[in-house]
Every structure is written in structure tokens, then in C-alpha cells.
């Protein structure tokens, strides 16, 4: 019979498959004997800055080739790659819950031996420490740039009408009324992308509750119902001064609208500035800290690590990776990034604070800052969507429902974590 023929057809089919395999395989090999270092950043908006940085690095280094990727939906892609166990060498991520999770999964390498770690401002190293579920020996991230969130405003519009920068919540509401009375829309929110709901929330919550609220809850010392009531109530108030039906418009729409002067203020972080300027390059933007409290001295600026670099534990070429990190941490390199993206450098030194953050500069200089509350929220809990649900809820007891749900969901989604923290405390207690 035709075993031979079967074999022949099989080999043809295999040949096709192999041919395709080689087709995809060849893309991997890079220029001659250089060591390739792959950096994946989660900030697609900074792709131009990274391109320039990579170009400079590769022009000055002969033995190491730096490849920087800033894909869209980067966090999903990065996690998918982790699931595939296909790790880059360095990841550029934010100082948020993802960092905590990756660190907890033991994915990162201790880089405390790197000289550059010594030049990071202490407050940012502390912020990273606070993100560790269970205190961990060593340094696992090199904080690069921080952002600040509060209110961005249209400076020309403010000057034209003679509006004053508010310092307390009452002044802020009075200002909103005044702007509204002059026929201009005070705020633009763009709540369609759920994460945007958390921008004003974070800015409010840092002023109104403790920076380690989540930790305190994990330890059983307090509840969110207690800590978050005022923030939740004030979130509702903001809706009165925003575009009708903010759930129809997303972040992109809000940036565009603010850039075109459709609102006087926009409660968002400094990370939105490049996008706004891309619509209106000559726009005169300034900012101020969210006046969440009745007394100015209680206000705190919402600031967190926007970008930091972590080295994957199983990276093969530690020296080459350190070479890249050293280059990234040179003042000039940082300046390239700042010029393109704005923000505040995490390195000690004379970096100019961008003009758009003028109104926040005293807070930055005096270190009156606290990390985003949502950096401690587990992503699967989807607090952003919870927030949107709450804002859409027009019933009388919406605040109570929201706070109750926050507490119960928190317990459910942090079950493993709470157990871990308590186990750690017990072990620590036993050891003493």
C-alpha cells in the first residue's frame, strides 16, 4: 500500500509548517555579536522619547544593543508575556499594584548594588517600600519619573476672568459656581474609560485619608466606610460642574475638549499634558493641588511613581542591563524624557519642574505628597468600575451602598493577601 505516499505527503505538510516556523524564527536574530537588552515600557505615549533614548544609547555603545518597546495595552501584553514565560530584560512600569504583584511573584532582581540607587530621592524609595505586600530585603525598582495629579486649568481663561486659585474645598466650589455663572463649563471629566473616574478620586482621597489606609484596613484597624465617606460625597459634588453625561466621553474626548477650551479645569494628572498639547500645542496650562480640605494646610498633593525600571530576575546579562540602567539614569537622558513627557524626576538634582506644574511646585519642593490610593487596589477588584457604578447611582443611599461594597469586595479580593500579611506578622511575632 501507500505508506510511502503517506510519508511523502506528511513530509510536504511538515515542510510547509517548518517553512513557516523558519519564517517567524529569523526575526529574532539581531545585529552581529551584540548583547541585546530588551526593555518593555508600559507608556505608549512616551514612544518618541524612548526612541530617542535608544538611538543615543546604541550610538554610544558598541557591545550592547538596546531595544525599547512601548506597546499599546502594554500592561495586558506584559502580563500575557509573563504568562507565556517570555520575559524581557527590563520592564518600565508604574509604582502601583502591578509592581506589588510582580514583586510578590518573585519576578524581579535585587538591584541594590547598583550605584544609581543611591541617587534616588528617599521619598520615592519609601513609596516603593510601601508597595511591598510583605517587607522584602533589597531594592527592586529604580524610580524614574513621578507624576502629580490635581486640577489642570486653562491659564489664559483664568487670567481673562480674574479667577483666583482656590485653596480650600469651599473656595473651590465657589469658583466652580462663578465659572458656571459666566457661562463656561467648570470641569470636564470624561468618565467613559472607567479609570478616569479614579483621577479625581485619588486626588481627593490623599487629602482626606491616610496614605496607608489600605494597609490599616488589611490589619483590621479601620474600615473604608469610615475613611472614604467624605471623598465619596465630594466625588458626587463634582458631577454638578461637569459636562452633562460624562459617561459618554472617554479620556481622549476629555483631553480634546479641555484643549479646545470647552472647560476651564480638568481634574487629571500631569501625564495628560502631552496629550492635551498634541491637540492644542500653544495652550497655556497650569495646575493646582486638589483643595480637598477646609483648611489649606491639610491638603496633600497626589503624586506617585509614574515610571520605574525593574530588572527581571532571570535576565542573563546583568552587566549589560546595568549598563543600560546607568545610561537611563544620566541627567541628560532623564531630561530627554522630561522634555517629552513632563513630570518630576525621581533622581536628586537640579531638574526643572515643568511650567505646567508651577501651581504644585511648593508642594513638591516641601515634600507634601502622598501616593495614589489606587496603587494599592487589586486590579481584579476593578475599583474604577465600582466608582463609575457609584457615580451613576442616583439613589439616596448611594454613598452607603458604595462604601459597604468597597469593604466587602476588599475582603474578598484581598483574601490571600490579608492571610499573607497576617501570617507574616505572626511569624515576625514568633521570631521575637
Amino acid at each position, binding site marked *: 500500500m501507500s505508506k510511502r505516499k503517506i510519508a511523502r505527503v506528511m513530509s510536504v*505538510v511538515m515542510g510547509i*509548517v517548518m517553512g513557516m516556523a523558519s519564517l517567524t524564527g529569523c526575526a529574532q536574530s539581531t545585529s552581529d555579536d551584540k548583547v541585546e537588552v530588551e526593555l518593555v515600557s508600559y507608556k505608549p505615549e512616551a514612544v518618541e522619547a524612548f526612541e530617542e533614548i535608544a538611538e543615543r544609547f546604541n550610538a554610544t555603545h558598541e557591545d550592547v544593543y538596546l531595544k525599547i*518597546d512601548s506597546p499599546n*495595552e502594554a500592561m495586558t501584553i506584559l502580563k500575557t508575556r509573563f*504568562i507565556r514565560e517570555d520575559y524581557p530584560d527590563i520592564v518600565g512600569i508604574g509604582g502601583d499594584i502591578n509592581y506589588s504583584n510582580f514583586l510578590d511573584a518573585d519576578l524581579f532582581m535585587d538591584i541594590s548594588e547598583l550605584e544609581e540607587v543611591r541617587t534616588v530621592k528617599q521619598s520615592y524609595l519609601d513609596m516603593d517600600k510601601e508597595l511591598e505586600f510583605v517587607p522584602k530585603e533589597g531594592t527592586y525598582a529604580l524610580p524614574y519619573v513621578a507624576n502629580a495629579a490635581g486640577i489642570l486649568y486653562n491659564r489664559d481663561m483664568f487670567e481673562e476672568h480674574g479667577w483666583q486659585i482656590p485653596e480650600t474645598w469651599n473656595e473651590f466650589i465657589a469658583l466652580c459656581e462663578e465659572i458656571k455663572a459666566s457661562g463656561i463649563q467648570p470641569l470636564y471629566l470624561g468618565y467613559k474609560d472607567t479609570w478616569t473616574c479614579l483621577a479625581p478620586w485619588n486626588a481627593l482621597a490623599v487629602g482626606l485619608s491616610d496614605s496607608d489606609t489600605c494597609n490599616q484596613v488589611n490589619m483590621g484597624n479601620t474600615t473604608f466606610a469610615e475613611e472614604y465617606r467624605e471623598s465619596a460625597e465630594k466625588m458626587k459634588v463634582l458631577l454638578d460642574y461637569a459636562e452633562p453625561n460624562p459617561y459618554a466621553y472617554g479620556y481622549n474626548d476629555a*483631553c480634546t475638549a479641555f484643549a479646545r477650551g470647552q472647560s476651564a479645569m480638568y481634574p487629571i494628572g500631569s501625564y495628560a499634558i502631552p496629550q492635551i498639547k498634541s*491637540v492644542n500645542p500653544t495652550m497655556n496650562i497650569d495646575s493646582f493641588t486638589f483643595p480637598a480640605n477646609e483648611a489649606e494646610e491639610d491638603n496633600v498633593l497626589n503624586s506617585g511613581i509614574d515610571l520605574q525600571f525593574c530588572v527581571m530576575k532571570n535576565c542573563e546579562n546583568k552587566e549589560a542591563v546595568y549598563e543600560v540602567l546607568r545610561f537611563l539614569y544620566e541627567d541628560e537622558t532623564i531630561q530627554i524624557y522630561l522634555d517629552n513627557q513632563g513630570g518630576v524626576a525621581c533622581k536628586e538634582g537640579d531638574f526643572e519642574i515643568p511650567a505646567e506644574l508651577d501651581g504644585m511646585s511648593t508642594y513638591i519642593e516641601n515634600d507634601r505628597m502622598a501616593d495614589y490610593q489606587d496603587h494599592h487596589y487589586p486590579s481584579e477588584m476593578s475599583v474604577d468600575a465600582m466608582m463609575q457604578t457609584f457615580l451613576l447611582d442616583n439613589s439616596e443611599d448611594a454613598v452607603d451602598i458604595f462604601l459597604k461594597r468597597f469593604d466587602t469586595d476588599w475582603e474578598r479580593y484581598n483574601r490571600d493577601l490579608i492571610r499573607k500579611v497576617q501570617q507574616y506578622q505572626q511569624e515576625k511575632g514568633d521570631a521575637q
Partner: protein
Amino acid sequence: MMKKAQKTNWVLTIVLILGTVTVFFPLYMAFIIAFKQPSEMTNDVAGALSFPVKWSFDNFEQAMEVTDFWHSLGNSLLITLTTIVLAVLIHSIAGYVIGRGMAKKKSFHFIYLYIVSGMFVPFSILMMPLVKQTAQMGLGNRVGVILLYLVFYMPMNVLLYSGYLKNIPVALEEAADIDGASTWKTYWKIVFPMMKPMHATVAILTALGTWNDVMTPLVIMSGTGQNTLPLAQLNFQTQFGTNYNLAFASYILALIPILVFYIICQKQILNGVANGAVKG
């Protein structure tokens, strides 16, 4: 009586022609916006539906560049075409073997049920383990996506082929058998050509499914630098969301290849789809 029956129903014809607006309107709007400049976009109906001031292909050129159009198109073509060819070759012989074997043996009937029941397995249950598995096997790339399509479409295609086989008399094969031809040869020489109508159906159904699929390439090969056309749109959306004109130019570009293909092969496609339903 007969005369009356053959009269054209003009009222219905007109209603149906007017109804095509529901098909054309979204496409027309996308097309118009793709040619406009951001400054031409106003917040009223006329602004959205009027012709652009100038018919310029700038948006398209720019969109081609940012989405790496030719590369994505190439990937989509490579994946779809390879899948179709392999599906017709492999699924047809699998359908043949199962269909003929089923008639005589219990074991083949069991195999038939095993494969066809795969139709009920939602991709979501396979997705997460597959991401891991394909990566471990070095298949987190276009080859992996093709292999997965071959498996995902196997239940439907085997069902179609083995169903169609009932129309082909066994006597033909038996005659060839007596002439001393091997089963293998008989299949490719006699049976395979006779299943031609089903090949068209299988090719079209498989092609429509793979060409437009987002989820498989999204989870299997995102981050590898390789995009398919729909995947490129997904990436594009987040990156340049503020520029609707550019975005729509890119959407139109993504729709054109399949539209052109449809216009050329409309008859075969409609027949193929109908055929698949009747035989399935």
C-alpha cells in the same frame, strides 16, 4: 393565474432597496470621515455627513504608516491563506476517513463524536492554558495561530465533509479498489475532486472566521511585533484615539481587502455559506 404570480412586487422591491440604507449608512459615514481633516469635524449632523472639503489621501497615507498596514495585511493574508489550504487538505481527508469509517466501525463513530463535540468548547476555557502551552512549545507566533485555527475549525469542517460524503456513492471507491488502486490514491484521485463544492464552502467559512478574528492573535502573539489587520486596529485605537479622521482612514483600510474579495467572489461566498448551513 401563472401570469399574476410572475408579476414583480415593486412595493417590496422599493422597500428592500430603501432598507439597504442600514447597510450603507455606517460605511458611508466612515468613508466620509476618513477623508476629512479634524477641523472639519463639527458637532452637528451636517458636519458629520457632508462631503469633505478636499478629497485627500493624507489620512490614509498616515494611517498606513502608523499601523504598518502592508505588514499587517501580509500577516493576515499569510495566516488566512495557509489556514484555508491546510483546512481543505487535512479536514477533508479527516472527514472522509471518519465518514467512511463510521459506517462500519464503532471506534470511528466515537472519534466523530469526540471531534464534533469540540464545537461546544468556548475559546475562553482554552485561552489561558493555550497561551502558556503555545509559548512553551515555541508556537507563540503565526504558526501557532494557524495550528489553533486548524483545530478550532476542525469540528465544523469534519461535520460538513462527512455529511457531504453521504452524497458520494461508495461504489465508486469499491470499483477503484477492485482495480487495485490504494485507498490513499483513490481518495485524492476520485473522492477529493468530487467534494469540490464542499471545499468552497469550507474555505469560505474558515476564511471569514479567521480573517476577522481578534481574540486568538491577541492572546497568542501580542507583543511579538506581529499584527494582523484587526489587531492593528485595536492597537491603533488606544494610541491615536483623539484623531477620529486618522482612525477612520485606518478602519476603511482594514475593511477594503475583504470587501474587494467579497465583490469579486460574491456568488461563491453566498452559495458557500448557504451550502454549509444546508449540509450541516
